């Protein structure tokens, strides 16, 4: 746990029974959600970038023999990496719950928090699990007809962009809530940045049309430039949520600014 950070908090009501200090930290539930988010993204990175080698994605224009070879080369990585994703997919909800909580803390209608939570609750199904299922089924029988392997390959990589609407509308919901909020829960510039993230989901759409070039699923625009924006966005919101938890005062007014930790 982030003890260094929690020590800088404003003093909390000391009425809670003294039975193990950490368990009585009233922010523990928020920190758990934050750390689960960190753990999820790390395991996601290991499974997709290192084990299965599905990120960065292989080429959309490959022909049958090359696709079969790709399944062969990554047989164990796909099966093991995606088994890990099957196991932990539900923990992706922690980030969405924390983001919904940020909106409950804002001076906006609770509808924003609930819309966001519902929009994102099944984001993992079209955006990740279908990819994992298709590629797992492909990898588990290497002797399958190459034409069927190629079908599963296309299904896998096209499904990976299947969350277009979820991220588009979800980012707009969060962004609008931040811009309208008067409690200064999250900075306005991050609200506007949600617009940039929403647009990446428009940019990715042509990957269902082009089999090669910058707009294909492995293309410089549809994949690499988008990934940079998504990376900046994800890094920003993880740090901002951490900041938000540190500032949390369990009130309903303006969220206080973080006090600088005293230097010793």
């Amino acid at each position, binding site marked *: 746990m982030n003890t260094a950070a929690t020590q800088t908090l404003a003093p909390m009501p000391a009425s809670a029974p003294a039975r193990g200090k950490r368990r009585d930290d009233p922010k523990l539930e928020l920190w758990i959600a934050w750390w689960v988010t960190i753990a999820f993204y790390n395991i996601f990175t290991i499974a997709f970038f290192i084990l299965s080698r599905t990120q960065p994605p292989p080429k959309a224009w490959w022909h049958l023999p090359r696709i079969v070879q790709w399944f062969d080369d990554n047989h164990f990585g796909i099966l093991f990496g995606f088994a890990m994703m099957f196991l932990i997919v539900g923990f992706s909800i922690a980030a969405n719950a924390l983001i919904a909580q940020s909106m409950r803390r804002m001076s906006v209608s609770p509808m924003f928090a609930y819309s966001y939570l519902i929009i994102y609750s099944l984001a993992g199904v079209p955006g990740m699990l279908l990819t994992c299922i298709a590629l797992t089924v492909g990898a588990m029988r290497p002797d399958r007809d190459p034409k069927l392997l190629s079908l599963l390959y296309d299904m896998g990589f096209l499904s990976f962009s299947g969350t277009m609407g979820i991220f588009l509308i979800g980012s707009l919901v969060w962004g609008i809530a931040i811009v309208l909020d008067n409690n200064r829960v999250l*900075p*306005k*510039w991050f*609200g506007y940045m949600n617009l940039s993230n929403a*647009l990446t989901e428009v940019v990715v759409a042509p990957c269902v049309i082009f089999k090669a*070039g*910058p*707009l294909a699923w492995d293309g410089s625009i549809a994949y690499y430039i988008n990934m940079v*924006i998504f990376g900046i966005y994800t890094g920003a919101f993880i740090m901002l949520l951490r900041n938000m938890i540190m500032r949390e005062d369990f009130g309903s007014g303006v969220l206080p600014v973080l006090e600088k930790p005293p230097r010793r």
Partner: protein
Amino acid sequence: MTNVVSAGLGRSSGGLNSKAETELRASVIPGQPDIWVLVLLEAFTFSSYFVVYMIYRMRNPGLYLHSQAQLSLQLGVVNTIVLLTSSWSMARCVQSARAGDYGIALRDVSLTILLGLVFTVSKLFEWVTKTQAGLTFTSNEFFMFYYFLTGMHLLHVLMGFVFLGVVVYQLSSPARRSQEVIETGATYWHMIDFLWVIIFALLYVMR
């Protein structure tokens, strides 16, 4: 990051009207400084699209030149003038609101919206005529970039109408009129303008 932005760019509230205060405006950003994070992020994103376009273009310049001949340079020039004028009337809107002439400001922003609509309609008209001529998103690489870049830009224009709508909402009642919100909307609209200037140069004019 919050601290960097607010300390580096910062000013917290708008609504400065009198002349003396106008003098004090030296070294401040109009509107919320936060909007500049979006402007710069989108600027860098579009720049990377432009560089990708240039690299692909130079692999096959003949195809691009031949395809460019199918575009109407005149329409591109008209589009540019329309957007430049809309930006100008938006700048006037900010000046008028700053001076307290809210009626004139409302007229200026209405002109901006009108010109934005003209731009949108002319873009749709251009797409329809090109599509009818058999030049579609998948026709060749140039037209892929053409529809992609103009489409992404038009999406920003459509979102710009939301910002302008908020400006109209602010101006239309004495109870609101936040100079900060008006200036934020203006900054967003000018972004549309400068992005188009580069798209016009790269798609229509360069050889």
